[in-house]
């Protein structure tokens, strides 16, 4: 052991600025804490704590009665079907939108042609529409569709279809533009139509990526369709919401376990599919 006198002075040269920055951040943060109604006391409120304690304690053991498991199995299938149908619809909506929005098929861009502004005037609104569709999150779409078409999986499917068509559309047209556009351009320059140029010049090369990204989105949709159930759009989420409102911890635990397994399954399936295609 060295004696204290022999040790170098334990002085941090950067101490003052660091302290100042921390203090400054805390002062900035204070209104935030107020706004977020930050109140640790509320967490330790005796009554709330007791309810929560009983709820969390009832997580174990998970509910395994045959009747409930059947219910969960149905909800799981519904979740999977919602995700699949939603992404399929989204792809159907996104594909034509991407065709319109893509600059890869623009004839007016090849030469000093006329109609350049017309082309942009057509493309931009579609791009903006895609931005709006994907900027409103799926759970908000689900909330809206639940009001419009009623509770149940239909709202979830529509929400996924609308939200994901915005994302897929953007990625699709980026794939069209980022690939090798020379074949398509050659076809256009020799007088071929746009659809012919797309079908022979772009689509064959882009297909693996299109499929790969759509499958990845399907994986996200499985996760999202669980979440959307909380606003009443069917599937596992709705079941979990019900069980939570009844404070049935065992049921919540079972659903959480099934949810993890489902996400794992979706991960694996999507990985296999994408490796095969790409």
């Amino acid at each position, binding site marked *: 052991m060295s004696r204290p006198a022999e040790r170098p002075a334990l002085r941090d040269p950067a101490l003052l600025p660091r302290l100042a920055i921390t203090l400054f951040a805390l002062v900035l943060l204070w209104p935030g804490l107020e706004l977020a109604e930050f109140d640790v006391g509320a*967490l330790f409120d005796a009554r709330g704590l007791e309810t929560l304690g009983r709820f969390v304690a009832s997580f174990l053991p998970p509910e395994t009665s045959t009747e409930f498991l059947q219910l969960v199995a149905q909800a799981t299938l519904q979740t999977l079907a919602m995700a699949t149908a939603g992404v399929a619809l989204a792809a159907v909506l996104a594909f034509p939108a991407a065709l319109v929005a893509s600059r890869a098929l623009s004839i007016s861009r090849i030469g000093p042609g006329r109609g350049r502004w017309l082309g942009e005037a057509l493309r931009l609104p579609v791009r903006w529409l895609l931005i709006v569709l994907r900027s409103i999150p799926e759970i908000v779409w689900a909330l809206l569709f639940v009001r419009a078409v009623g509770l149940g999986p239909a709202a979830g499917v529509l929400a996924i279809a609308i939200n994901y068509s915005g994302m897929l559309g953007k990625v699709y047209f980026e794939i069209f533009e980022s690939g090798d556009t020379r074949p398509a351009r050659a076809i256009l320059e020799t007088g071929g139509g746009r659809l012919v140029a797309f079908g022979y010049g772009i689509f064959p090369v882009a297909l693996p990526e299109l499929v790969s990204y759509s499958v990845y989105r399907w994986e996200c949709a499985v996760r999202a369709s669980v979440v959307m159930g909380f606003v009443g759009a069917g599937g596992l989420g709705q079941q979990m919401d019900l069980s939570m409102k009844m404070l049935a911890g065992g049921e919540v635990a079972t659903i959480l376990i099934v949810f993890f397994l489902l996400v794992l399954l979706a991960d694996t399936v999507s990985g296999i599919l994408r490796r095969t295609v790409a």
Partner: protein
Amino acid sequence: MSRRPSAVTGVAPWLVLGFMATAVAASFWYLALDLSGILSREGLDQMVRFAGGFFPPELSPGFLRQVGWGTLETLAISAVGTLLAVLVGIALAVPGAGRVGRWARLPSRLVLNVLRSIPEVVWAALMVLAAGLGPFAGTLALASHTAGVLGRLFAEALENAPSEPTDALRHAGASPIVTFCYGSLPVVMPQLLSYTLYRWENNIRMATVLGVVGAGGLGQMLFVSLSLFKQDEAATVLIAMLLIVGVVDALSAVLRRVLSRSGT
């Protein structure tokens, strides 16, 4: 992503496409979606009437002020939630990176995994039970999920950090806390900061919607407006949400460009 010039070749891709087509058909069959009902005259009429209720958006000064406060509340939820997550994340990442001892590594990794794999909305529903309706529940929900995400990233950053500075400090007789603060923290700080900013960006987006299950912010306003059939108010809230997302996207793009320019 590999970009091969060759198009689809072999049998396997066609099998995949066939499998996917079957899955889609089976899903529509299983759900027995009444698309014809939705796309029928009546269904569409109802939808159009519902959508028409959103115009024009409610723009009275009183409501705009409310939306302004809702926006601030949303930002506060995301900021405080992320900050809490950083604290909890570091507290769990240090043992998770094996800094405390072998025995502590697996349990903390397990906790991080559980925190991370429960989605924010589920956390929010749980926290509404624990802390009551309102922004505090949303803050805790964001903090819980984000702590799992950041904790794992932090742990990886700590494990990948070079060990020479810490070794040098330890050999010179520094205490473990000093070793961590002056040996590891400065090395991983840029990474921690960029992960934290990235998650904050995500959390702002998340905080706008968490309220849908009662966790405060703009989402809760949207839910309340829709429940009261005040679609015009809901439209204003939706516009505010779009603006937040747009501004955050633009700011982060600018920030990223500036940082990457000064970084290299």
